[in-house]
């Protein structure tokens, strides 16, 4: 048996056969350069968001307020007083004020949709993967194709549909209940239904990926043991799906939170009670505040906060969802 030797860390040689023969220092420099590339827009945005109007004019976008480049070490010169003068949290507070109801709304429809999607996706994947029947392939193809449909092709019918089935009117009894009587709730419900429906294909496909790796023999054994389909699902498949549930939650939460087209379609105006955070942020630019870049930057961060947090905490799971 060949033994696997521990990884060489010879700094004078290329790091193993697998990589490009770059010298280690140059390699890390390249990687850091890419870090700058990928973080620059956000870093610049952040710096801008804490500057006053004067600060925006006076200092370079990616530098702290009140600082300037110089040719001497440490290549940055600053004066603490100027810095404080040009720093402000005004925009963050404004952004928060403007966007907070959007955040609440987004939460209101994102979380239920994510949960429903996951449940539907898991069940659909089970019925299509761990139970075999003729014609499965065709149904599967429809699910997979469903992921890629451009939503532009359905938004007008959606508008027609929700205009036709006036949820506000038809479910009047429900809206009379104490917790559900806010003006925005019918729209929120529309959003939940919509996002759930369009999230089903990708969730199904994600679960299917995991179910395909499950031992078919295990399922057969359970069936021979007399378990029906539902039993098998509840007692074997579902518990084993828990890791995938977390992947789906994280991925789908991000997708739905970040989505914009359905918000525009169903809610229309950022003034609406049910406006999602992406809608408010997106239409921020059409108002007078549109020229206020620090506000926009702060708004961007506030709106993105939940997904950034989820991403940092669960990067691997997110990557798993993206990859499929």
């Amino acid at each position, binding site marked *: 048996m060949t033994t696997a030797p521990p990884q060489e860390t010879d700094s004078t040689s290329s790091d193993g056969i697998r990589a490009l023969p770059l010298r280690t220092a140059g390699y890390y420099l390249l990687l850091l350069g890419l870090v700058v590339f990928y973080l620059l827009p956000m870093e610049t945005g952040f710096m801008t968001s804490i500057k006053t109007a004067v600060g925006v*004019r006076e200092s370079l976008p990616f530098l702290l307020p009140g600082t300037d480049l110089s040719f001497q070490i440490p290549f940055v010169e600053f004066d603490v007083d100027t810095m404080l003068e040009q720093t402000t949290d005004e925009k963050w507070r404004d952004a928060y004020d403007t966007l907070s109801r959007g955040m609440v709304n987004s939460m209101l429809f994102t979380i239920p949709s994510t949960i429903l999607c996951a449940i539907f996706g898991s069940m659909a994947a089970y019925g299509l993967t761990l139970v075999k029947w003729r014609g499965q392939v065709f149904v599967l193809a429809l699910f997979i194709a469903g992921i*890629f449909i451009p939503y532009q*092709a359905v938004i007008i019918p959606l508008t027609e549909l929700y205009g036709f089935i006036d949820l506000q009117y038809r479910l009047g009894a429900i809206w009379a209940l104490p917790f559900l009587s806010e003006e925005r709730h019918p729209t929120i419900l529309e959003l939940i239904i919509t996002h759930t429906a369009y999230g089903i294909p990708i969730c199904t*496909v994600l679960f299917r990926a995991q179910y395909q790796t499950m031992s078919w023999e295990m399922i057969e054994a359970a069936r021979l043991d007399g378990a029906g389909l539902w039993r098998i699902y509840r007692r074997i498949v579902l518990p084993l799906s828990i890791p995938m549930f977390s992947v789906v939650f994280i991925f789908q939460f991000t997708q739905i939170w970040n989505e914009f087209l359905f918000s525009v379609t169903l809610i229309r105006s950022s003034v609406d009670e049910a406006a999602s955070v992406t809608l408010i942020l997106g239409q921020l630019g059409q108002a007078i505040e549109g020229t206020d870049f620090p506000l926009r930057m702060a708004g961007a961060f506030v709106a993105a906060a939940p997904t950034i947090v989820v991403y940092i905490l669960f990067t691997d799971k997110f990557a798993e969802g993206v990859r499929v």
Partner: protein
Amino acid sequence: MLELIAAVRSDGTTGDTGDDEDERSGRSRWERLRQSDFVRSAPFWGPPFLLMGFFVYAAIGWNFLLSLTDYERFQGPDYSNLDFGMYRRMLDDPTFWEATQNTLILLIVFTVACLVAGLLLAILLDREVRFGRGFRTIYLLPMSLSFIVTAQFWKWMYNSQFGIINEFFGLFGLGPYGWLSNPDLVLFSVIFALVWQFSGYTMIVYLAALRAIPQDQYEAARVDGASTLKLYWRVIIPQLKPAMVSASVVLLLFSLKAFDFLFALFDGYQPRKGADILSTMMVREAFARSQWAYSSAIAIVLFLLSLAVIAPYLYQQHRQGNL
């Protein structure tokens, strides 16, 4: 994204019914039909299928129907008078052709750029590197952001007066450039920003594929006399083809529907001249100009373009037995 399709089925059977199963347990054809798994599994996949079937496929059908009417403003669609008038109008509309051209440019340049960028990133990170996970996290970070959010950042980056890009060029005495105002530059500014956002995705896809290639193939190629370039070009990259294909499908289909970014970048339904694509035109005709039927027609065109990408791919996967 579609690697799951390429996963080998664990039991090695096709999608067909368990004929082997029945042979083994000796059930008759009749019993099989009665208790068929099709029926018994229906409660599981049925509701999601119906939901999706209605909201996706029925909706598209409805959309097509609408495109055949003359529906605009607040009249209400007249389903009795159906014709292809909207399509004729489309073909005569120079805006439509401009948008189509821009869409195709976006499609191709964006997809190729993402594939190349992602490949380079993956190759760089496919080794034992300190903080490797950290680097990957950072390169993938843009994917976790909404396009509305990233559009704010890029709008600021591209700003002709204060934007950092013009500041940078200014150092060399170049510019200032109208990245978003110049019709010749705007589409590529958009593509560049989108590649920034999406290259992490292709990187992840390639990384997974690269991990599957055993170390000793690299070694064998070395011993066989291949230089690094040749090694990657002749041994490694050809084996990345499946990953490349599935990533391309995702990228192409994404760029077809890319609307959010443009709306936020240009603060409205009308992107600057040179950056109008079919999806922005479609939404504009619908929500800004209330030209419902016309907009539906454009949406159908988008759908057909998507079909042109997804159908061959699904077919190829099916032929390869991956479905």
